[in-house]
């Protein structure tokens, strides 16, 4: 294995023995000087002038993924100059990843946007930011007057701070009265939400990262944690090393660093995780590994609609219909999923299916399942979440230390802002727009007439961009996200955004393909250039102060929204001073979550700690929900209380295997799978401006199976054209590189705006969650 890898090493800059010796010789003279004059330094980076040499360390959550590592940012003067892991933060205990350690360098790219720009006669011209805010408010007013309130929209992000999302929701849903509010987290975790809601009736994981320190078996479901959640993955490795009873099973469609580190790597054909999960349940029941006490007390059985479609057409609508079933009906449903039958569908041997079932079924083993985009970006995303919960519910391996079905998130505040504040078309900070009580609560806290809040959701993200293309939406304000790289079937949505009477506002920190389609660009404050909070995957809210000033006229997204809201006449709803607004917003928002199920920590507590988990009740964080030993919201007097559902039970769902929206055929004969790499976060607009990260991963590539590459006559680095029914992209081949897809699949990282792989992907989505599937569509390949 290693030999093959080293032979395929051409793309790597080789610092071979000769270069090594040369560099040593060149610096030896200076080395001598340094030995004579201790104190002289020879570091490569530019030295800060007039610095005292002293560093002040300030706490913050990391800017990048959803893990939520605590970092300490070293400040000298008014600049961030260093990073270290926060040893007091229980998430990462002082360790970061390569992105976190170099995160502060993302603040200092030479092309930071520091002035507002407005399109005049086709050219972007700089204007004072106040003028740009006037233009935005006037355009919103005008558009709503001409085309109705639902012709303006806001598209935000799981990288919004909690106050960003809260003021956006208050302005759009409470004041303007439109539910045209979405966030890129729809593309990232909405299937996780609908999974929790359908199985438990309340969102977000019951467990926490501490589960890693107790579990004996980890199963990563389509989840390359070694690259995407490295800090949690290395905690798993450390546990495996420290205890002799830990194993890691990587269950995936492609071989990755996680497969390499795992004790067992099991590959399945795309989409067939549905069948395998059902087969595991079949085996658990067949072998009587069921935890009957748990099942009889805490679980009820249900089924929903089948053959539910893929949403590729405009105006697609779907509402699931739940029907209760009993255990015998559920057991009968599983008869289609014997390991032998599923082996044929999935390519996973019956032996491996039985092996996985035996791990979940072994009463002496604590099992934690981890997943992220593989299960979320799935046209049956809600179903596969239900099915993995089924496994944990049949065996009663849930809500206790180490027994944890754990849905990870990919963005620093996908949970904190999008899920908890509810910045999606159907949601409110508490509950949803369709619920009268939730609307009344929001109207009361927001000080707006309840009639302002429209009970009918409008557009989910894909449909919102379709509405922009059709012309139903004329104005869109985009903050902290880069949809002109990330939307699936991108050609259509870019052309839509560029149509004549569409008006696009983009708040950004750097030029991106999305600022390219903007009519107004607002320079945004980034991360610790503003005060705010993020909320990570384990229900942890993490506050950061403004640590360095934003450059030029750059302004926080929260304050941009407040400025525009005031210009639209909502001074009463947005009364806060610039100095105090974050604390005031937090305390107002916190009222939505009062009560033991979701109480949030007060502002003063958030200031002191590197993150606080909710429910935060009587000064205590809740680590394991639904478990009365840990969760004060449990009131039924039993060993568990699944209080999210009206029947106080967790729900097992009979969900069948259904194929992907588009599978390879004679003409388009390869699967296309897309994703991330450890060096880059999302579209790379921040991480590519960090020297170490760019130099380690300068451009994207297409991973091919070596045999497919040989069949195509392509060697490492040669160009391959990837063609789908929607578009094509030509990019260099990577063979036996970072990951190896099985025969018949290619994989492309999406961070590189030079190779827009989303012009090739399909905008099919899960009909329940409306989250698109970026992992599966059909392509053909040509040697370019």
């Amino acid at each position, binding site marked *: 294995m290693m030999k093959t890898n080293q032979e395929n*090493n051409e793309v790597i*800059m080789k*610092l071979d023995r000769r270069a090594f010796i040369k560099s040593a010789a060149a610096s030896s003279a200076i080395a001598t000087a340094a030995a004579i004059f201790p104190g002289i*330094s020879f570091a490569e980076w530019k030295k800060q002038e007039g610095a005292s040499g002293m560093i002040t360390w300030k706490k913050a959550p990391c800017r990048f993924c959803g893990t939520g590592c605590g970092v300490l940012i070293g400040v000298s003067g008014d600049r961030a100059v260093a990073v270290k892991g926060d040893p007091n933060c229980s998430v990462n205990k002082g*360790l970061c990843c390569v992105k976190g350690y170099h995160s502060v360098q993302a603040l200092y790219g030479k092309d930071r946007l520091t002035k507002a720009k407005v399109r005049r006669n086709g050219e972007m011209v700089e204007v004072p930011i106040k003028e740009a805010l006037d233009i935005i408010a006037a355009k919103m007013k005008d558009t709503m007057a001409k085309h109705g309130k639902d012709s303006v929209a806001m598209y935000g992000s799981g990288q919004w701070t909690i106050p960003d999302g809260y003021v956006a929701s208050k302005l759009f849903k409470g004041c303007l009265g439109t539910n045209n509010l979405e966030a890129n987290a729809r593309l990232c975790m909405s299937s996780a939400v609908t999974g929790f809601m359908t199985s438990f009736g309340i969102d977000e994981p019951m467990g926490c990262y501490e589960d890693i320190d107790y579990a004996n078996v980890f199963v990563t479901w389509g989840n390359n944690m070694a690259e995407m959640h490295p800090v949690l993955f*290395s905690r798993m490795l450390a546990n495996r090393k420290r205890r002799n009873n830990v194993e890691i099973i990587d269950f995936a469609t492609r071989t990755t660093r996680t497969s390499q580190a795992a004790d067992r790597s099991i590959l399945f054909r795309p989409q067939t995780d549905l069948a395998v999960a059902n087969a595991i349940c079949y085996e658990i029941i067949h072998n009587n590994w069921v935890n009957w006490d748990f099942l009889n007390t805490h679980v009820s059985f249900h089924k929903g609609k089948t053959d539910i479609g893929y949403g590729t057409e405009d105006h697609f609508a779907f509402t699931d219909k739940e029907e209760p079933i009993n255990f015998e009906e559920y057991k009968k449903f599983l008869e289609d999923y014997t390991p032998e039958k599923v082996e044929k569908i999935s390519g996973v041997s019956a032996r491996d299916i039985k092996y996985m079932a035996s791990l979940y079924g072994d009463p002496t083993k604590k099992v934690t399942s981890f997943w992220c985009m593989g299960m979320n970006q799935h046209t049956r995303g809600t179903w596969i979440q239900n099915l993995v919960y089924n496994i944990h519910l049949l065996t009663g391996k849930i809500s206790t230390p180490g027994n944890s079905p754990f849905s990870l998130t990919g963005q620093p505040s996908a949970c904190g802002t999008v899920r908890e504040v509810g910045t999606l078309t159907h949601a409110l900070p508490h509950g949803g727009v369709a619920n009268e009580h939730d609307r009344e609560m929001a109207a009361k806290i927001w000080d707006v007439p309840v009639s302002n809040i429209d009970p009918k959701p409008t557009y989910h993200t894909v449909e919102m961009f379709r509405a922009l293309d059709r012309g139903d939406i004329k104005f869109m304000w985009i903050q902290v996200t880069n949809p002109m790289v990330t939307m699936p079937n991108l050609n259509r949505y870019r052309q839509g955004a560029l149509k004549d009477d569409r008006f696009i506002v983009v708040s950004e920190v750097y030029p991106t393909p999305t600022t390219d389609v903007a009519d107004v660009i607002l320079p945004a404050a980034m991360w610790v250039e503003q005060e705010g909070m993020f909320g990570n995957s384990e229900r942890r809210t993490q506050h950061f102060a403004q640590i360095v000033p934003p450059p030029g006229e750059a302004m926080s997204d929260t304050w941009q929204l407040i400025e525009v809201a005031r210009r639209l006449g909502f001074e009463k709803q947005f009364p806060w001073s610039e100095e105090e607004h974050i604390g005031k917003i937090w305390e107002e928002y916190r009222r939505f979550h009062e009560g033991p199920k979701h109480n949030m920590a007060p502002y003063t507590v958030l200031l002191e700690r590197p993150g606080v988990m909710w429910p935060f009740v009587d000064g205590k964080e809740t680590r394991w929900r639904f478990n009365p030993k840990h969760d004060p919201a449990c009131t039924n007097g039993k060993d568990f209380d699944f209080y999210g559902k009206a029947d106080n039970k967790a729900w097992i769902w009979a969900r069948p295997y259904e194929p992907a929206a588009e599978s390879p055929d004679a003409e388009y004969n390869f699967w296309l799978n897309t994703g991330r790499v450890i060096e880059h976060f999302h579209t790379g607009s921040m991480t590519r401006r960090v*020297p170490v990260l760019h130099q380690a*991963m*300068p451009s994207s590539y297409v991973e091919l199976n070596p045999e497919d590459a040989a069949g195509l006559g392509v060697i490492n680095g040669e160009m391959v054209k990837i063609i789908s029914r929607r578009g094509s992209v030509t990019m260099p081949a990577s063979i036996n590189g970072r990951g190896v897809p099985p025969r018949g699949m290619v994989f492309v990282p999406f961070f590189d705006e030079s190779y827009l792989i989303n012009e090739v992907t399909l905008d099919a989505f899960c009909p329940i969650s409306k989250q698109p599937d970026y992992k599966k569509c059909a392509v053909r390949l040509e040697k370019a």
Partner: protein
Amino acid sequence: MKKAADKIGKRTLALAALCLLGVGGLDLAMAAPDIPHTFDAGGEKIFRSYNATPQEYMAADSGNRNLMGFYELRQYPGSPPRIPHAVAQSFSEQPDNCLSCHAKGGYNAELDRFVPVTPHPENELCTQCHVPQRQEGLFVETNWQSINPPKLGRSFLAGSPPPIPHSLQLRENCIPCHTGPAAVTEIRVEHSSRGNCRQCHVPVISTDPRLEFVRKQ
């Protein structure tokens, strides 16, 4: 310098074999049940490394690493260094890869160098923090600045032992970086026979603000 390196090289090459269970390949046993091994800034590691590393290896000096090369791989004082040599893209996460050299030290014939030893071999997912450089040049220019690295030899009195100028986080163990043939020349200790480093050297973090003690009346 080459001569010296040759001489020591031969002697230490033989030693390298002896060191297979050397500097870093430690199983950290806890001092007592329920006492975290991280107490006292992980100082336990120093004693274990000192015990496990042959004295001759600690005393050897190849002279081919210096402070300039050390900082060339870093973005600010204390940042995780880049990997300065070629690695296959799919370099495995298995501990017998990076750690097969960097946990133990010894001589690498291919690069004709002694291998620097990691002070934190318990962290196995090396590429979580350390990445190679596959290309020079930037995506866009940067305005990045940082402060000067700590100055060397800042003894408080002439001839007194210098304090430890850097944070101990992930660098709790002195032995891997400050002794042995791959140690950076400028920061090698000349008295590696003494195993209780913090008997004389105490952390006075050069970048931390000094707080004046004011006695309350």
